[in-house]
């Protein structure tokens, strides 16, 4: 029953943003007042007709043309996606592990030194503009110490990857392709370029996770079953990590959707500053060059991703917490 209701709800959510976006997509063209174009695409038809035409186009993955990428939005998406995926593939484990770790310790000993430290850390992470933090990091680790230059891969290796016939780009992720082709130097080089972007995202985003984890941990620690376990003299470590943390993780899962959204927002700033040509970079360039179809289709894609991740979260939730499944 729950599964069905979630599915219907999820479908409804994917449906409505499209309607919203459809209204936007048509306006610039209508404003341009090119009668031929209007006739061709049926923009003079009533709203609902346009909407269904648009839906038909979208379902055929025809999302419009991106001026910035000078190719269709769908192709451009496939072109830019691996860079962003690679960044977030490395950033999200760092964020999750670090956030949960800090949150757990802060929750076990509230008002300890570490708790205050993590509190200040999270408020600063919350207040820190991603773009500024990235700029300062680059100032230090690229300007002062020339260790971590911006970009994706060094020029020499980029040329090699582009021109070599032997190097097969299985996944288009440089780190993984490097391993698959037995070229560890490419993997290491790509990791070097990833270090600062991942660090930026981790520091800025893990604040949210930390707070939720801490409050979840605090709540669990004051519950009766923990006190019972303490009273019978169970191992402290077992109580903290096995009993309390596992229960405290449940509310954390619910913010997964929010985390994905903030990862996306984070990668806009990070990719702009570190000159990594991924989805975020594309979005920001499209915004500055008023490339409307890109922004609209990205809104749509994001909404779909968000809904799918929420659906996924709900399913996982039921799996992890049997109380929900049974109720």
């Amino acid at each position, binding site marked *: 029953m729950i599964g069905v209701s979630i599915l219907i709800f999820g479908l409804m959510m994917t449906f409505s943003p499209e309607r919203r976006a459809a209204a936007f997509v048509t306006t610039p063209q209508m404003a341009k007042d090119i009668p031929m174009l209007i006739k061709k695409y049926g923009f003079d038809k009533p709203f609902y007709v346009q909407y269904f035409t648009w839906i038909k186009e979208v379902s055929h993955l025809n999302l419009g043309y991106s001026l910035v990428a000078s190719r269709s939005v769908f192709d451009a998406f496939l072109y830019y996606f691996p860079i962003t995926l690679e960044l977030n593939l490395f950033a999200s484990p760092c964020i999750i592990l670090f956030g949960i770790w800090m949150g757990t310790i802060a929750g076990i000993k509230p008002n300890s030194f570490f708790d205050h430290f993590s509190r*200040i850390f999270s408020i600063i992470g*919350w207040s820190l*503009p991603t773009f500024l933090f990235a700029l300062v990091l680059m100032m230090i680790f690229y*300007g002062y110490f020339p260790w971590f230059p911006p970009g994706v891969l060094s020029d020499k290796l980029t040329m090699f990857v582009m021109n070599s016939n032997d190097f097969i780009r299985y996944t288009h992720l440089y780190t993984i392709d490097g391993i698959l082709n037995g070229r560890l130097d490419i993997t290491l080089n790509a990791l070097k370029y990833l270090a600062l972007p991942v660090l930026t995202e981790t520091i800025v985003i893990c604040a949210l996770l930390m707070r939720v984890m801490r409050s979840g941990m605090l709540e669990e620690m004051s519950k009766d079953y923990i006190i019972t376990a303490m009273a019978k003299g169970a191992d402290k470590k077992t109580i903290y990590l096995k009993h309390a943390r596992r229960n405290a993780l449940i509310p954390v899962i619910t913010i997964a959707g929010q985390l994905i959204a903030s990862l996306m*927002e984070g990668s806009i700033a990070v990719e702009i500053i570190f000159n990594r040509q991924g989805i975020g970079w594309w979005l920001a360039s499209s915004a500055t060059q008023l490339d409307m179809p890109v*922004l609209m289709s990205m809104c749509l894609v994001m909404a779909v991703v968000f809904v799918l991740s929420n659906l996924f979260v709900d399913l996982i939730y039921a799996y992890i917490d049997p109380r929900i499944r049974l109720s």
Partner: protein
Amino acid sequence: MLENHPKLKEIRFTLYRIFKNPTAFMGFALLLVFTFIAVFAPKIAPPKNLSNPYMIPHHGYSVTPKAPSEKHIFGTTTGQYDIFYGIVWGTRTAFRIGIFVISIALLIGVSIGTIAGYYGGIIDEIIMRLVDVVFAIPFLVLAMAIVVAFGRGLDNIMYAIAAVAWRNYVRVIRSGILTLRDQDFIQAAKIMGVSDIKIMIRHIIPNAVFPVMVIAFMECGSVVLTAAFMSFLGLGAPKGYADWGQMVAMARNYIVGPPGDPLKFWYTIIIPGTAIILFVLAWNLIGDALRDAFDPKLRRQ
């Protein structure tokens, strides 16, 4: 007699809770400094161009930033714009963005949330699905899309952020109202024939608005952050306008100095950047303390 009125006692306890927290004190102090700067901006940095004081004056057109000197105590950024002047008048811009956006968002969010919570049923269902839809798209992406749709400019940035930010308040105020709606005093007012609008404005909103105000305080910082980032991208004010995000953007090409002296132009980034961070930090510290003080679970610990 009046001294021991429970309401007064409660307010006193709340204030005590807020100011016992050293971080809140720091937040208020920071905010006070910023308010002072914003109010006395014409005194601290007298504008040269009286008709448009928000434009930063510039001496010359040289692109290379100049280090802090007696004439320009924070130095000049590219195009010889005075950084000190930009910071002082940028404070006004930041306050304007924060207060304007939050008030518009509050107005929309509270009124929609109140209608949804008070009437319930099909109206509630429709409104909440609409909110779900707005929630499905990341804040920044949606705001950027709206700015692009309506054209660049600082004002449009403010409208766009307000058009997205209201979603945060609807759910909070609605859940507050759901518990209020069936209470006796509301029923009594209804029986006495008070109109729905009057009930909402006089009886429901004052009782449910508090948690929303706390969130609004916390959001103020993130609103300024988002606006700064969009200015940084170049979606905001024209060049030379006193806006911190734009000042960082102007300095972007100077993060790495000439060979041999890589940190030469540090002031072009660090000074406007510090202003942004401190401003946002002030709001966040206060918001954090307010939340702790009003959270019934944490309040009496």
